[in-house]
């Protein structure tokens, strides 16, 4: 039997020092993408439309390959965090969980496919 009041049990515990990870991850990835996205857009835009051999040569160089891989990894992480909030705002119940889990699989899956393709092109 606890004789503590609810107030007494809560006082001093603050916010449990958790709960802002989602917000903070969003901020960190957004600042990273602020640099990555313009660089990637110009880099990808300059190679799209080139022939097969030129594309292979392009992505066997370190800068385009590393830039594209970083953009996909950070971009899909940021996308997944944002999509989660979209679903949490508008969808409730079982579909909320199904959509968040499904899109998380797709986000990490697409990033992994992209990085695999880039590694194969680069090496």
């Amino acid at each position, binding site marked *: 039997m606890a004789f503590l009041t*609810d107030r007494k049990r809560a006082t001093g515990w603050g916010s449990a020092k958790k709960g802002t990870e989602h917000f903070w991850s969003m*901020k960190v990835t*957004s*600042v990273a*993408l*602020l640099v990555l*996205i*313009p660089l990637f*857009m*110009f880099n*990808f*835009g*300059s190679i*799209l*439309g080139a022939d*097969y051999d030129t*594309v*292979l040569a392009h*992505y066997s160089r370190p800068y385009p390959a590393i830039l*594209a891989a970083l953009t*996909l990894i950070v*971009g*899909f992480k940021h*996308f997944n965090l*944002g*999509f989660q909030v*979209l679903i949490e705002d*508008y969808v409730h119940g079982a579909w909320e969980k199904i959509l968040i889990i499904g899109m998380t699989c797709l986000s990490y899956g*697409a*990033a992994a*496919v*992209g990085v*695999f*393709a*880039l590694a*194969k*092109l680069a090496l």
Partner: protein
Amino acid sequence: MADVNRGNRPLSPFMLGKYYRFQLNSVTSILTRITGNAMLVAALMIVWWLLAAATSAEYFALADYVLTSYLGDLVLFLSLWGMWYHLLAGVRHLIWDAAIGLDVPTATKLGYAVVGGSLFFTLFTVAII
């Protein structure tokens, strides 16, 4: 006693358009979300194009044909615009997170800057690539 009304609380309705007229702030806000989530299409197209390039010349020819077709061009152009819009709107959020520019006149100016800037940077990008 904690929360005796569990499960029976009023929900906040979706206000935009239905109960509340469209304004620059609300429209630029929802467009941030729409453009951000719409980036999935272009991202998947680019991943597919990279995978095709890593697979074979024939598969690359197919993916490259789709991405550089009239429809592919249109989707990528709109994505470019959406990307610049989302990026600039994100900068606006980073500014707001620093508790700067939250008054209505400044927020309105930032809203116009985001819309105008996205058009400018999109045309700039198209011009140089």
